[in-house]
């Protein structure tokens, strides 16, 4: 059959064989369904004198219109028709390979690969990235579905950064693109792009020495320099009272104010406070007092006998003394009355 490919939507080639298989004279006729009349190919592709295909210009290409192709082979007067094929050209687009591959370091272990595509409608493309390091044995292919509505077709591939000592590793990246299913139904990938390399390629001794040099700088020079700097700062700090006071402020000690009280006057507050001497004297007593002992005397009512069970108290006879035991100094005078 006839194989037609639209290259980047700029031109198309339809090929029906190769020099080895073809012997006759071929001519190609094409037309678009319900649209154009049957037209013969204007520009044949020749291989050592034999037509093997036809080249179509951009003006002769119409997508989304069924395209019919008929190839006539004439050999020695007989004409043979290769069966006509009906195709839809939007399913035969092969975009051009991506260009301007660049790699950028994103962070400690990420690389960003970007590219742009010469195909006019970037939103119609999907891409695949292929890479390996010089130490890997096989290629890694990443083909995510990358969609961008407009602008350059860009891609990003996250990749592991070679480790610090691994200076002999370098990575090679390739990218290719294909029309995605938003714009057609094709299986034709573009060619792989021109590769881009990342990492150092050299394995010479000079490189190793340079790395060692860098190592010494990082591990020795910088610590020593920073220690010296620290030392200088410390010395400066100690020597300069102004700076020292800021870091170690003087804590106020009020005990000095009380030196007088505790040392000179031996804790005698009144002396230190300045209380006048005669005022102090006035508090001292200038007389003496005897202690007066006080006790309670016993009374006569406490000896009167108690009359138990009787209501009336003892009768008091007039003229007779109240108690026979009583001795009164007035007794004689009483009887005499």
């Amino acid at each position, binding site marked *: 059959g006839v194989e037609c490919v639209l290259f980047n939507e700029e031109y198309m080639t339809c090929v029906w064989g190769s020099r080895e298989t073809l012997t006759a004279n071929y001519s190609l006729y094409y037309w678009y369904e319900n649209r154009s009349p049957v037209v013969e190919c204007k520009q044949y592709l020749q291989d050592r004198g034999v037509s093997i295909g036809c080249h179509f210009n951009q003006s002769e290409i119409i997508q*989304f219109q069924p395209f019919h192709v008929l190839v006539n082979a004439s050999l020695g007067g007989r004409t043979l028709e290769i069966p006509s094929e009906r195709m839809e050209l939007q399913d035969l687009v092969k975009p051009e390979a991506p260009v301007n591959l660049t790699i950028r370091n994103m962070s400690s272990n990420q690389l960003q690969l970007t590219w742009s595509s010469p195909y006019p409608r970037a939103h119609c493309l999907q891409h695949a990235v292929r890479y390996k390091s010089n130490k890997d044995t096989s290629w890694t292919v990443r083909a995510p579905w990358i969609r961008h509505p407009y602008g350059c077709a860009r891609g990003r591939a996250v990749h592991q950064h070679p480790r610090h000592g691994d200076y002999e590793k370098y990575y090679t990246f390739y990218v290719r693109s294909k029309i995605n299913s*938003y714009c057609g139904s094709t299986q034709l990938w573009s060619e792989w792009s021109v590769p881009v390399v990342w990492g150092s390629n050299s394995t010479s001794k000079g490189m190793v020495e340079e790395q060692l040099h860098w190592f010494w700088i990082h591990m020795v020079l910088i610590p020593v320099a920073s220690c010296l700097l620290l030392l200088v700062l410390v010395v400066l700090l100690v020597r300069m009272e102004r700076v020292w006071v800021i870091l170690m402020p003087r804590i106020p000690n009020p005990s000095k104010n009380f030196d007088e009280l505790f040392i000179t006057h031996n804790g005698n507050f009144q002396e230190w406070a300045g209380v006048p001497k005669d005022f102090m004297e006035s508090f001292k007593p200038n007389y003496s007092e005897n202690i007066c002992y006080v006790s309670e005397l016993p009374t006569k009512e406490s000896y009167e006998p108690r009359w138990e069970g009787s209501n009336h108290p003892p009768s008091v006879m007039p003229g007779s003394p109240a108690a026979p035991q009583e001795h009164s100094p007035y007794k004689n005078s009483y009887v005499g009355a």
Partner: protein
Amino acid sequence: MERMIIFCMIFFCSSMALTAAPHKITKYKQLLKTINLLEITVKDKDVELLHTPENPVDECLSTAATCFQKGILKLQPENSQVNSTVTQAIKVLRRFTLSHPGKCESSCESYEKKNPKEFLKSFAKLIQKVI
């Protein structure tokens, strides 16, 4: 001051115009995804055949879009489980319109009737053409 305001307005409007273009593409991508979903969830047998514009020429793009709009409403879900999916998809697709200058000589009825899956394939092709 006035010049500054006018300049700001022009700047704002032009930036809106720039952002509008990609939205169209995003919208069309969404429509394509919806059509792909419908292709597997609509009933294809024992259903009414639909007028299907096949590879319409540029002048007939808006007629074709209207034709697809009408046909979409007649689609039915394959089973009750996909009922809501299909209803939602039809709601999204039935607002699809295209505008293109030129007079179209064919009407919707002049196009051949095909089954729903072919109808949807042609619909997808139309969107691929304009995306």
